[in-house]
């Protein structure tokens, strides 16, 4: 993902403010959940709180060195990457991108983090 410049972001935010009220009623395309199984927490709870949980997990892992945390980003990707393109991004059906495009949220996580499952997960498929 190419980072948008600051100016671009400001314009984007303004643009979204103008456009969103009109588009907000379109239905979200069905999401490709990926691997299946059981989410790390209640899906409804995750939908509302995943941002906070991820940021908290991030600080715990990076700064304190806590590994194997429940809300690991790599973990989400392992599970939620589509079986079609092996990614959480790419199309508006892909898990993280689909919902965020719908909700007009922009995240930079995947500038650094891989949007593909880790090799170990991939080979298990």
């Amino acid at each position, binding site marked *: 993902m*190419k*980072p*948008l*410049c*600051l*100016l*671009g*972001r400001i314009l984007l935010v303004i643009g979204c403010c103008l456009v969103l009220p009109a588009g907000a009623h379109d239905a979200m395309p069905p999401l490709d959940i990926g691997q299946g199984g059981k989410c790390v927490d209640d899906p409804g709870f995750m939908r509302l709180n995943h941002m906070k949980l991820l940021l908290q997990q991030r600080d715990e892992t990076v700064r304190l060195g806590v590994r194997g945390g429940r809300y690991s980003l790599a973990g989400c990707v392992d599970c939620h990457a589509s079986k079609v393109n092996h990614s959480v991004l790419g199309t508006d059906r892909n898990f993280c991108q689909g919902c965020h495009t719908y909700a007009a949220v922009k995240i*930079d996580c995947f500038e650094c983090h891989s949007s593909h499952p880790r090799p170990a997960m991939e080979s298990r498929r």
Partner: protein
Amino acid sequence: MTAVTATRSGERAYYGWFLFCALLALVGLWAAHQMESQGHVITGMNNQIVWGLPHVFAIFMIVSASGVLNVASVGSVFGRAVYKARAPLAGLLSLALLAGGLTVLMLDLGRPDRVIVAATVYNATSVFAWNVLLYTGLFVSVGFYLWTLMDRTMAAWTQPAGLLVFVWRFVLTTGTGLIFAFLVARQAYASAVLPPMFIAMSLAWGLAIFLLAQSALLRWKAMALHPGIHRRLKNLLGIFVFTVLYLVLAYHLTNAYFARQMPFERFVLRDGGVITALFWGGYGVLGTVLPLLLIFLPGLGTPRSVGAAALLVILGAFSLLYVFIVGGQSYPLQIFPGYVAHSTFGDGAVGEYVPSLPEWALGVGGVAVACLMTLVGVRVFNFLPRDVPEQAVESN
């Protein structure tokens, strides 16, 4: 107060400058956008020269932002009417320069989108974080000071506000000097002379900018400067240029005295190529000797030659900062004393750096932002120095 109206040609010049600066500022923004989307590869900066031309521009403006306030301080703290008449312009220039400098510094960040992080999480041991507080403080205190100058009901506060600004800008420039003075690892920087040197530089550069801005404004309104005031200001500039020279000499002489610093001094003063040329030619001849001659030689010292001197002082400032910032990083870190080192990562080798077009555009764009703010400010607030003739003669 008499209303002063601009001449027709003055108006044309005003809008000409306005458009020109707006254009440069836009080019600067474009450059920043390129740097953010393609990365810093498109600059000349690399893993050895990590701070380059944008930082030369930014630090020049931030240091001058503090020095330009000197004119205001002398007016309000020491009660000199001649300077007091100039305080509003000085305050405006200070805010504009600080904004311009910070714009460059911010847009050069690898992640300008995260400035909010810098504003919300502080690392208390970081000089950089202190500086963020100092910059904010300067905006607030200068803003307050300007308010007391413009609003008659606040006049009683002018003196305390002036004192606050006076103290604050000293601390701020000390802080800027400390950004470098705390870098123990590098030969060029770990020196206690740096904070006073930065203060002296701020006084000289700030006054040079003030003189140029003042003469442009007077030309715009077709006014002339009282000769007495002119003489006082030009002598002040001369003294400041001398002070900088003295501290630059002190810095290099103390360095040359320590055997371990000698190779570094040889690099700057003799073997550094562009760095050496900029030091002697740019700072020494053009930025110091020539301005002093223009100011003090009998027969010179006219408004025109002092204007040229002020321009040259600014040119010298850029040369000196380039030598200090880029030259200081070009000289290789001495990690293995007693050994000659080489590697694929520039160990033991003089760093390579050629500023690229986007860096120039960003730096010049920052200056343009400062000019734009000044142009708008003088128009909106009518910040022209107005001298009552008797005041001009009063002191000395």
